[in-house]
C-alpha cells in the first residue's frame, strides 16, 4: 500500500482515561465523529432487535396454521419491525454516516452547529426509546402493556380511538414525531456544513459525490419529514383533543392520511437509499482504481431523483379507487424515476469498466448492491404499472420488492461503507475472512428469503397475515423463506463478531489502507478531535490522487 508522509501528519496522543471520564466524554461530546459513531452504533443495535423480530415473524410463517405467537403479537411484531427498520435503523444511518464523514471529506474541523448536532442525536434516541416504551406503557393507564399493532404506515381509521384503544398508537406517533425532529436538526446541520465549511479550493464541482448525495438527502429530509410530523400531530389531536381529521364517522377522510403519509413515505425510501448511493460512489472508484465515470451525470441524477420522487407518492394508493387520470399520472412519474436511477447504475458499472478491480469485502458488497438493486428497481417498475399493481398491491410481491431495495440496496451498501471506513474509524482492519463468511451467508440467505417471496405474491398471498391455510399453495415458499431468514441471522451475527473481534485483534490499518483519494484518508486513523492540524487546500475532486501522482494530477483534466 502506498503510504505517503503527509504534511497534515501529527503525533497521536494516547493517555489513559478512567471509565467514568470516558463515559462522560461520550455523553457530553459535541464532536461530529463521536456523534456519528453513536448514531451508527445505535442503528446497528436497533437492526439486531428489529431483525430478531423478523426472525420470529418468519418462524411463525414457516408452517401453515402454526402457533408460535398469538395474532396480536404477530401484528405488533411486523409493525415494530417495519417502524424500527425505517425510523431507527435507516434514518440514524443517514445521520451517522453524514455526520462522521462529511466534515472529514470537505476538510472541516466539525459540523456547522455542533451543539445542535448533539441535540439531534439525543432526541432521536429518546424518540426510539419512547417507541419501545410502548411495550411497557402501551396498554395505557392500568392496561396491560402492548406495542402498536397498526402497521408501519398506520392507516386511518385503524388508528382512531375507536379501533386502537390504549396508548400504543400514541407512543408510535410520538416516538416518530420526536425522532423526526432530530432528523430535521441534523439535516439542517449537514446542509449548513457543506455550504459554509468546505476547505479552500473545494468548489461544488470538486466536492466528493458522497457529500453531494448527502446534501440532496438532507434537502429531501427537510421537505418530506414535516408532512409526516404534521400528520402525526393531526393524528394525536384526533385521539386526544377530539378533532376529526381522519375520523370517518365525523366526515373525515381515511384517504387523506394516506396522501399525507406517502407524500412523506415515498421520498423517504430515497432518503434511505441515498447513503448507499453515496457510499458506492466512493468505494467503487477506489477499488476499481479509476475516477467516478460521468461525475456531472452522477450528481445530476441524484438531484433529479430528489425532485421527481416528490411527485410519485400515490403509487402506493393505486387500489383506493383514484381516477384513471391520477393513476396514469402517478404510474408515469414512478417509472420516470427509473431513468436517473438507471444513469447511476450505468455510471457505476462504467467506473468499474476498464479498471483493475480489487475484491475486498467492501467491493464485493458494492457488486452485490448493483445486481440486487437492479432487480429491486425492476420489480418497482412492475409495481408502478398500475394495472399490474392492482394485483400485486399489499401482496408478498411488494414485501419482496422492498426488501430487495432495503437489504439488497440499503443494507448491502451500508455494509460496504462499514468495511471501507471501519479502518479509518478504529485504526484496525476488519477481518477479510470473516467478511467473506458474512457476505456469502447474507447474500444466499437473503435470496432464499426474498426471491422466493415474489412468487407467494403471484399466488395471491397477502402481506401482514399471521397465518395461512395449508392448501393455498404457499407453504413450501414460506418454509424456504423462513430458513433463509435464519441464514441471514447467522450472517449478521458474523458481522457483529467481526467488528468485536477486529476491534481487539484486528491488524492495524494505517492512515490510508485502501490507497484512497478523498481527504478523510489524509488524516490519521482514528482522526484527532480537530480532524486536520492544518486545513487542507484542494484543487480537484481527488486531492490525494493529485498528491500521489504529481506528474499527472486530476486538476489538469477537470
Amino acid at each position, binding site marked *: 500500500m502506498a503510504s505517503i508522509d503527509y504534511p497534515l501528519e501529527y503525533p497521536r496522543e494516547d493517555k489513559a482515561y478512567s471509565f467514568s471520564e470516558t463515559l462522560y466524554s461520550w455523553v457530553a461530546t459535541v464532536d461530529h465523529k463521536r456523534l456519528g459513531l453513536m448514531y451508527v452504533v445505535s442503528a446497528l443495535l436497533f437492526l439486531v432487535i428489529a431483525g430478531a423480530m423478523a426472525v420470529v415473524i418468519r418462524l411463525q410463517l414457516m408452517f401453515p396454521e402454526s402457533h408460535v405467537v398469538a395474532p396480536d403479537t404477530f401484528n405488533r411484531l411486523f409493525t415494530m419491525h417495519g417502524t424500527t427498520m425505517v425510523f431507527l435503523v435507516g434514518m440514524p444511518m443517514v445521520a451517522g454516516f453524514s455526520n462522521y464523514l462529511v466534515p472529514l471529506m470537505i476538510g472541516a474541523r466539525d459540523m456547522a452547529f455542533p451543539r445542535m448536532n448533539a441535540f439531534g442525536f439525543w432526541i432521536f434516541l429518546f424518540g426510539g426509546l419512547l417507541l419501545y416504551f410502548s411495550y411497557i406503557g402501551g396498554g395505557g393507564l392500568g392496561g396491560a402493556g402492548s406495542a402498536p399493532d397498526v402497521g408501519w404506515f398506520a392507516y386511518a381509521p385503524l388508528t382512531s380511538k375507536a379501533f386502537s384503544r390504549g396508548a400504543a398508537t400514541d407512543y408510535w406517533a410520538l416516538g416518530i414525531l420526536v425522532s423526526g425532529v432530530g432528523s430535521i436538526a441534523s439535516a439542517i446541520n449537514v446542509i449548513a456544513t457543506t455550504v459554509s465549511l468546505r476547505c479552500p479550493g473545494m468548489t461544488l464541482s470538486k466536492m466528493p459525490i458522497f457529500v453531494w448525495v448527502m446534501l440532496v438527502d438532507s434537502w429531501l429530509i427537510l421537505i418530506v419529514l414535516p408532512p409526516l410530523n404534521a400528520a402525526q400531530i393531526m393524528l394525536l389531536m384526533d385521539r386526544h383533543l377530539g378533532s376529526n381529521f381522519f375520523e370517518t364517522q365525523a*366526515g373525515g377522510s381515511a384517504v387523506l392520511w394516506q396522501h399525507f403519509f406517502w407524500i412523506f413515505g415515498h421520498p423517504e425510501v430515497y432518503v434511505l437509499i441515498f447513503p448507499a448511493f453515496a457510499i458506492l460512489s466512493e468505494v467503487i472508484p477506489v477499488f476499481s482504481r479509476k475516477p467516478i465515470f460521468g461525475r456531472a451525470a452522477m450528481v445530476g441524477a441524484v438531484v433529479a431523483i430528489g425532485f421527481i420522487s416528490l411527485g410519485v407518492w400515490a403509487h402506493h394508493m393505486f387500489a383506493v379507487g383514484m381516477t384513471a387520470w391520477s393513476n396514469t399520472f402517478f404510474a408515469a412519474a414512478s417509472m420516470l424515476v427509473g431513468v436517473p436511477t438507471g444513469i447511476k447504475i450505468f455510471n457505476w458499472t462504467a467506473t468499474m469498466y476498464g479498471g483493475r478491480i480489487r475484491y475486498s469485502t467492501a467491493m464485493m458488497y458494492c457488486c452485490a448492491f448493483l445486481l440486487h438493486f437492479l432487480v429491486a428497481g425492476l420489480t418497482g417498475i412492475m409495481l408502478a404499472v398500475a394495472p399490474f399493481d392492482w394485483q400485486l398491491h399489499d401482496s408478498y410481491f411488494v414485501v419482496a420488492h422492498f426488501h430487495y431495495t432495503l437489504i439488497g440496496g440499503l443494507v448491502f451498501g451500508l455494509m460496504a461503507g462499514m468495511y471501507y471506513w471501519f479502518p479509518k474509524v478504529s485504526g484496525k482492519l476488519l477481518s477479510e475472512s470473516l467478511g467473506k463468511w458474512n457476505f456469502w451467508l447474507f447474500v444466499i440467505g437473503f435470496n432464499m428469503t426474498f426471491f422466493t417471496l415474489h412468487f407467494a405474491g403471484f399466488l395471491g398471498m397477502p402481506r401482514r397475515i399471521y397465518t395461512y391455510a395449508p392448501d393455498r399453495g404457499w407453504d413450501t415458499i414460506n418454509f424456504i423463506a423462513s430458513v433463509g431468514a435464519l441464514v441471514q441471522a447467522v450472517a449478521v451475527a458474523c458481522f457483529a463478531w467481526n467488528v468485536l473481534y477486529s476491534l481487539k485483534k484486528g491488524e492495524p490499518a494505517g492512515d490510508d489502507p485502501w490507497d484512497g483519494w478523498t481527504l478523510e484518508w489524509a488524516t490519521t486513523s482514528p482522526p484527532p478531535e480537530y480532524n486536520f492540524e492544518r486545513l487542507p487546500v484542494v484543487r480537484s475532486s481527488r486531492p490525494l490522487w493529485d498528491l500521489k501522482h504529481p506528474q499527472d494530477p486530476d486538476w489538469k483534466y477537470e
Partner: protein
Amino acid sequence: MADNDVLTADALTLEQHWALPDRGKVGIIFLIITETALFSIFVAAYLVYIGKSLVGPYPKDVLDVPILATICLLSSSLTVYLAEHALSKNELGRFKFWWIVTICLGLEFLVATGLEWKKLIYEDHLTISTNLFGSTFYPLVGLHASHVTVGMIFLLIVLAVTLMGFPIQTQFRRVLFLSWYWHFVDAVWVVVFTVVYIIGR
C-alpha cells in the same frame, strides 16, 4: 517536498479569495424552508375540508375578517426592518423605538386572535371537535399563532438584554436572523388569511 507543493500550490491565493456563506444564514434559511413544508400540510388539510363539515357552525356564519390584526402584523414586518436597519447603522435609540413598536404590534395580533377564539368557543360554540371546520381551523391558526408567540419571546429577550445595556449591535447577525423569522411568520399569515378568511368563507 514535491507532493506538498502540489497540494498547497498557490494555497495562499486560494485561501485569501475563499469566502463561503455565513453558516447561521444558511441554517435559518433552511429552517424556514422546512417550516414552510410543515405549514403547507395544515393548509392543504384546511383546503381539502372546506365545506365538508357535517354540522354547523360554518365559517360564513361565525368568522369575521380580522382586518386590524392583519394590518398590525403586516406592518410589524416593516417596523422590524426599520429596527434592524437602524441597528446596522448603530443607531441604538431608533432601534429600541422600532423594536418596541414591533412588539406592540405583535402583541395586538395575539390578543386579537385570543379574543376571536374566545368568541368562537363561548358564543358560537365552535370547538376543535365540533366539526371539520373547527378541526382544521384551530390547528392551522393555532400553529401560526404559536409561531408568532415564539417570535415574540425572542423579540422580548432582545429588548430585555438591550435595555439592560448589553451591546446588542455586537449581535447584529442574530438580530437579523430573528427579523427574517419574523418576516416569515408574516408571510405565512398572508397565506393563512387568504385560505381561512377569503377562500374559506
